């Protein structure tokens, strides 16, 4: 911690000294994942280039390789990235391993207040240790896992009648996880316009984080917790509670009865493809993709609508999104901090939302016109109110890969029971925390 603070103070000193002595134009490189919002950021950053005289370069890596590529870069002390929009789970490692510059002094000096940003995003994207006022990132991109569906199919009278006949209920946006499954099962292998369609595209990917992000969407709503008490690392009875077991069984049933054939290793890209090709009636994915989906000429516009991850026992959504950090190995920290200062400006944040980025700034989110600005804006606010995130510990990768393995073994490979999967997960996580000296 001392080391990190020292790094932060040093960086800030260098930045101030740098700014005072010269306003030299720099070539800055911003690293992020290759996806729709990244393109919006390129557009947005042109304004920064015009204002500051700095040149922005971008290194965008596809999601499946993003963590591998960027964490390798950080661990090797690489200078490729001056700014990094890193995943929320990296914040612990970024802070403790000295990869990220601590931003407290910079925020104080520039009058940037974390109170101006949505509390859930500050907690998730910026702070380490969790909830403490030690900031290593500025909330850059709010995000959560949500759902979208074929509105045009839902509105068809023949389909509505068939659903009513099959279930005795009206076809509508689901209000519980069980109803969501029921709707997906209804569409599974149904003939629509002479084509066989399927229920829903969910996350089942094995290699990076896919199936964990998908399954936690169900687990959280059943009341799954990582620990009995926050910070205790006591997982017995929380991770493998009866509710968690039921939720995992539910996700497996969803996978087995309501997804397209061959859907064994699917994540964001596959979900988008399945929906855009008219293969599925519903799909889960990150809110970040919703602007692109709405704009899609084939399945967007009045053919699509969106909804928040439905509750079961409680309302909850899996957190996505990222904060923007200054990489401590960068030689251009002063210019990088300039970018963060510019990005934190409410006007820039408003433009960010306009271009398709998800601002976490209260000035944007609390604007009276926000909820009507996009068809998914209201859902985004609701989702962000109930987000839960995976471990953000420095050892998050070990914790994540253990969960990927246990969940995929049970859900997709049909090995063992949900109870066994979660019991084994506790064993894996306990071993990691013992190695970390936290147990």
């Amino acid at each position, binding site marked *: 911690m001392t080391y990190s603070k020292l790094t932060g103070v040093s960086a800030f000193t260098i930045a101030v000294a740098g700014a005072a002595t010269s306003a030299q134009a720099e070539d800055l490189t911003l690293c992020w994942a290759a996806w729709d919002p990244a393109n919006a950021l390129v557009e947005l950053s042109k304004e920064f280039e015009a204002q500051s005289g700095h040149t922005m370069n971008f290194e965008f890596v596809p999601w499946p390789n993003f963590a591998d590529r960027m964490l390798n870069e950080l661990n090797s002390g690489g200078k490729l990235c001056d700014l990094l929009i890193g995943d929320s789970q990296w914040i612990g490692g970024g802070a403790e391993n000295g990869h990220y510059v601590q931003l407290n002094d910079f925020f104080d000096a520039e009058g940037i207040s974390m109170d101006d940003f949505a509390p859930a995003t500050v907690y998730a994207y910026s702070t380490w240790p969790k909830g403490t006022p030690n900031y290593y990132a500025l909330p850059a991109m709010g995000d959560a896992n949500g759902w979208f569906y074929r509105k045009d199919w839902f509105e068809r009278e023949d389909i509505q009648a068939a659903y009513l006949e099959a279930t005795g209920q009206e076809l509508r946006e689901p209000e519980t996880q069980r109803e969501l499954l029921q709707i997906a099962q209804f569409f599974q292998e149904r003939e629509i316009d002479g084509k066989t369609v399927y229920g829903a595209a969910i996350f089942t990917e094995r290699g990076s984080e896919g199936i964990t992000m998908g399954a936690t969407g169900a687990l959280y709503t059943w009341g799954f917790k990582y620990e009995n008490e926050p910070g205790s690392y006591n997982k017995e009875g929380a991770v493998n509670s009866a509710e968690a077991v039921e939720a995992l069984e539910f996700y497996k049933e969803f996978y087995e009865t309501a997804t397209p054939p061959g859907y064994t290793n699917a994540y964001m890209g596959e979900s988008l493809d399945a929906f855009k090709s008219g293969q599925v009636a519903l799909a889960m994915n990150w809110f970040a993709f919703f602007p692109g989906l709405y704009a899609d000429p084939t399945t967007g516009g009045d053919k699509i609508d969106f909804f928040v991850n439905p509750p079961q026992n409680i309302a909850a959504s899996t957190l996505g999104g990222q904060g923007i950090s200054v990489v401590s190995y960068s030689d251009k920290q002063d210019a990088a901090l300039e970018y963060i200062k510019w990005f934190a400006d409410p006007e820039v944040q408003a433009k960010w939302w306009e271009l398709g980025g998800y601002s976490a700034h209260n000035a944007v989110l609390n604007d009276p016109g926000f909820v009507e600005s996009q068809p998914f804006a209201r859902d985004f606010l609701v989702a962000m109110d109930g987000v839960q995130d995976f471990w953000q510990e420095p050892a998050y990768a070990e914790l994540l890969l253990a969960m990927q393995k246990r969940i995929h073994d049970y859900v997709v*490979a049909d090995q063992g029971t949900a109870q066994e999967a979660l019991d084994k997960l506790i064993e894996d996580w306990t071993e990691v925390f013992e190695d970390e000296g936290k147990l």
Partner: protein
Amino acid sequence: MSDKTVDRVAAATPVQVARKIRGLSDRAIAWIFVAPTIFLLLAINIFPLIWTIRLSFTNYKANRINREPEWIGLRNYERILTDSDIWLNMQSKAHFQFWTIFFQVLIGFTLAWLINKKFKGNDLWTTIIVLPMMLSPAVVGNFWKFLYQPQIGLFNYIIAFFTGKDPSSFEMLGQVNLAPWSIVIVDTWMWTPFVMLICLAGLRSIPDYIYEAAEVDRASKLRQFFTITVPMVLPFLMLAVLFRGIENFKMFDLVVQLTGGGPGSTTELTSINLKREAFEKWRTGYASAYAIVLFVTVFGLASIYVKALNKVKER
């Protein structure tokens, strides 16, 4: 032996050249020439090996530069050898090794035997057969992934055509019982030509007069095959098995493209598991111990095999 070589080189060196580097003994000159190779060998092979052995006794994590590694003795080895998941990975690997080599040898030898017959278009067929082996494993993995796709994949349609099943009723890459075989099929398709080429070299090295002598002795074709062809090709075949065995042990890219180790951990070969431990979980100490265990296993098996190969050659 090396002294003699040095002497021979020294004797062959023109006097004028020798005078230019006066003051250096022949042995010193020999060392100067050999030193770069020895240095590279030490730097690239020996030092990393020793360093890996050292790390395997620690809890070192390459992503935790602020944390001093602790000496934990044999704990990493104990964990590896008692971890049931690792034994499952080993079983997956053994299954993959055995069946790929079995099919590659069987089909490769048969193809070589057929190609060795003189017929029209012989060269063209040889070229066509060796094409798969020229492709990148990542490319092969990608296009076989499409072929195995249950809704649009050609493979499923061909199987459905012969069996009458619904093409989307089975998932080669998604079902636990089929996924390992899907990899065996692709690897066999890709590398059988390699075995074929080596067998072909073996077949073409058998002098015709041996068969002519057998004909004179009225040996049947079957007897000629088992008493001449098979024994004379056997060293080549064993060499092909050795090459394929070593290559298959390192198999990574093809499997990552096809299944990513899934479904679950069904096709998570040791190489994939090792990569995850070392470069995704960053358990460097543990991964080092894992690598040493694999190294000892491969080295032991390869030594036994090479001894057997030498015995066959001596026969």
